[in-house]
């Protein structure tokens, strides 16, 4: 078994994309979807998810064209030095800004349930240290940690969703795309909705570590498809249980769903805390992969071989950013720009880079 080098299997790459994509967003996604599309929010999530599957094909193909390099390395060659540099900075910013958001969500989840009143320095600080410690490891180690944690989180999440079927009413999912319920003027929320799907940068950064780069596209598409499926299922069940009107008002709808499945207490009085505990692992995988990719990308940009130095150097900045805003929902409003950046990269830069790579290939022929 190799450490470093080409050590990742296609399955591990799929799970890394899933681990990066599925995080705190899933706990709030149904509310956002309900706010914009009403009862048919689940269908909108499915449509957006399938759109991203299309982009995943492009991202995967692009990665396959440069199996020895990350997007940071080949983008300046395709876009030119200046635009390439600007793209790289935007790309790294996109990866990096996920981390403080991720920390903020964790802080709030912990304060809401596990440790009410625990100071920010303690919760965010310890979590940030755990992120930096994990992200400074080798890529195969990160893939293994992600492989285990994301599977546990998805399993517990699906258990909650399936268990909450007892309160599910299919009528809540109708009518489909009713004009009265759709509020497309809420651009901020719509962008926030799409941001949840933006996990494709992972593949363009880890392709040099994939054992068989030819499987990259398949792995990427599979991951995007799973993300679309999981989000749709979760949104559909949340809307089916609460109805879209109630769902709009529930900030942490995922937790409310877990509370709804509380049956007669046998071992534990409440099940929602079990969801939170397992969801910490989902949050952690997102933060871990982001931190690792930021370290890797910045290392390549400034030509520092030891990514651990960069990761640890960013810890105080990340802490400051995560603690500077009052709560996650303020972050959400602020992070619209980040979501917009994610959209631009996914729907404009990926096709552009792929097109340029094809043209370059033709020229060489």
């Amino acid at each position: 078994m190799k450490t470093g080098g080409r050590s990742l299997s296609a399955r591990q790459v799929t799970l890394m994309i899933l681990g990066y994509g599925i995080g705190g967003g899933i706990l709030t996604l149904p509310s956002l979807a309900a706010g914009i599309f009403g009862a048919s929010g689940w269908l909108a999530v499915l449509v957006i998810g399938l759109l991203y599957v299309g982009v995943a094909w492009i991202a995967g193909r692009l990665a396959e064209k440069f199996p020895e390099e990350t997007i940071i390395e080949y983008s300046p060659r395709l876009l030119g030095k200046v635009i390439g540099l600007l793209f790289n900075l935007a790309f790294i910013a996109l990866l990096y800004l996920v981390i403080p958001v991720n920390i903020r969500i964790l802080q709030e989840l912990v304060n809401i349930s596990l440790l009410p009143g625990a100071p920010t320095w303690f919760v965010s600080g310890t979590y940030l240290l755990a992120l930096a410690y994990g992200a400074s490891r080798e890529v195969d180690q990160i893939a293994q940690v992600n492989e285990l944690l994301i599977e546990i989180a998805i399993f517990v999440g699906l258990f909650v969703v399936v268990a909450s079927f007892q309160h599910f009413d299919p009528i809540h999912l109708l009518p489909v795309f009713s004009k009265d319920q759709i509020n497309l003027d809420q651009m901020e929320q719509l962008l926030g909705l799409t941001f949840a799907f933006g996990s494709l940068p992972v593949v363009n950064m880890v392709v040099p570590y994939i054992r068989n780069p030819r499987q990259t596209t398949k792995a990427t598409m599979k991951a995007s498809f799973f993300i679309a499926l999981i989000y749709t299922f979760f949104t559909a069940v949340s809307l089916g249980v609460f109805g879209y009107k109630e769902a709009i008002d529930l900030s942490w709808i995922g937790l409310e769903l877990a509370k709804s499945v509380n049956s007669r207490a046998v071992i534990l009085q409440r099940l929602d805390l079990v969801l939170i505990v397992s969801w910490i692992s989902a949050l952690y995988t997102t933060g871990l992969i982001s931190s690792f990719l930021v370290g890797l990308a910045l290392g390549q940009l400034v030509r520092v071989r030891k990514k651990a130095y960069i990761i640890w150097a960013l810890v105080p900045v990340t802490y400051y950013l995560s603690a500077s805003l009052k709560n996650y929902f303020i972050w959400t409003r602020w992070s619209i720009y980040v979501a917009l950046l994610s959209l631009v990269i996914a729907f404009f830069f990926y096709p552009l880079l792929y097109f340029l790579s094809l043209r370059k290939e033709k020229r060489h022929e």
Partner: protein
Amino acid sequence: MKKRSFRRARPVAEFRKEKAKKERAGNEGGPPQEGPALTTDFTANINYLKERIGVSNDVVFREFVFPLPEPVQAVLIFVDGLITKDTINEYILLSLTTFEAKEADWAKDRRNLAEKVKDHVLAINEVSLESNLTLMITAILSGETALLLEGEDRALICNTRGWEHRGIEEPSTEAAVRGPRVGFNEILRSNTAQVRRWIRDPDLRVKTMKIGLRSQTDVALVYLETVANPELVAAVEERLKKIEIDGVVESAYLQEYIEDRPYSLFPTLQTTERVDRVVGAVLEGKVAVLVDNTPFALIMPITFWQLYYSAEDYYHRWPLTFLIRVIRFIAFFFSLYLPAIFIALAVHNPELIPFNLAIKIAGTREGTPFPIFLETLFMELAIEILREASVRLPGPFGQTIGIVGGFILGDTAVRAGLISPIMTIIVALTAISSFTAPSFGVAITMRILRFPLMLVAEIGGLYGLSLATIFLLINMTGLRSFGVPFLSPVVPLNLSDLKDSFFVAPRWAMIKRPLVNEPLDLRREASKANHWWEALLMPPKHRKRRRGKGE
């Protein structure tokens, strides 16, 4: 075959090697690798040997005359207690002193006398010629007998090894309800012979080397040449050869040198004194290292999960083994987390405990003077002290200590109101769970880890425990056993090897050896199936025949 990368045994190995070389250069006490050669001067040779080893009273120099037409002075040198006297008396001394030269033409010419004696006189099965004095001394100190002849610059080394030793007994540390009742003993040759008895395959290799500058301990690598990955064998051999210490008292000495991560709490090699376990491992493509003077063999590579498998697992029918393993892993979870989870729930999230249970716990804790964390800590420490005391005392006393400590002390403490009854249940369940680990090494690791987890639970509750678990996971995913990921086959997932993990497939479905060992010969069973899940649908042929005959 894929290229396999093995990490270096120790980052400091080079440094140690250099240091040891420097020390040896300035130190004449240790035996150098190259020594003086024997000369034709018989007296000088004897004087040298007497100076080097003759000071000790257990080294015997038996001088006699070899009755050739022109009598030859001879000496037998051996260590009393390490040889079989009968062999020396009957097959060496008797043969040499009663030799009738008249009947042998070769005796007329004294040239190459040592070789002629070897071929015509000595009735010993293992005899070799040695001209290096240092190697000769090593052979004598290992139980062999050296025969020096006047005028010869080569000595005859006869294998006369034999000493008092423990017989083959049932292993005391790895008891099993079903399975062979034989374990290794302290004699290396006896141990390798036992493995040979089990595997009568000409491909079974036993490579012996000496480790320990002063102890010159025999260490044997045991593996199947056509099954074990040659890179694995080479890596084990290389790491062993790099070891430069004065002595190897037990296989644990080697273990610490050849592990991939010497600072890790988790053992990344398996120790066992069961012959069947070593045989099973060798058949799977692993390498076993047997060390003279200890019954404990080392097996490599291993995974974390294998530390929780017992040799007996393979002797029961698969549904029972499956159940036993599930129970064992639940016990593993309890032994590591139970006190910590109790602290986290009781201190930070009592609302999670069902109402009736919470009331009961609160009722039993009324009047106890210590906070929950300290109470748990004291009880855990008490259990550890009891455990240590019971191990140190002789058998019956040890059991008495366990009973007195466990029942009387616990009961008295509860009656005195010092601890709550729920705490005795938690601590007892944790202690009993920790005994289910078949590997002593991993059980100790769990015992050590339990204390920081309790502290983390006190400070950070379930959140702290989640983070601590993540830390633990990161650490475990970084571990390798000779290149094999420690958590394999769960992460990275290896479907083929899952047949022998939490889940246990029937013996007839385990058609392939574990892939993590990257064996040369993958198949262990003739079957049309390519994977164990396919083989599950193809029960053994003889069963079909039986059914066909109407049984």
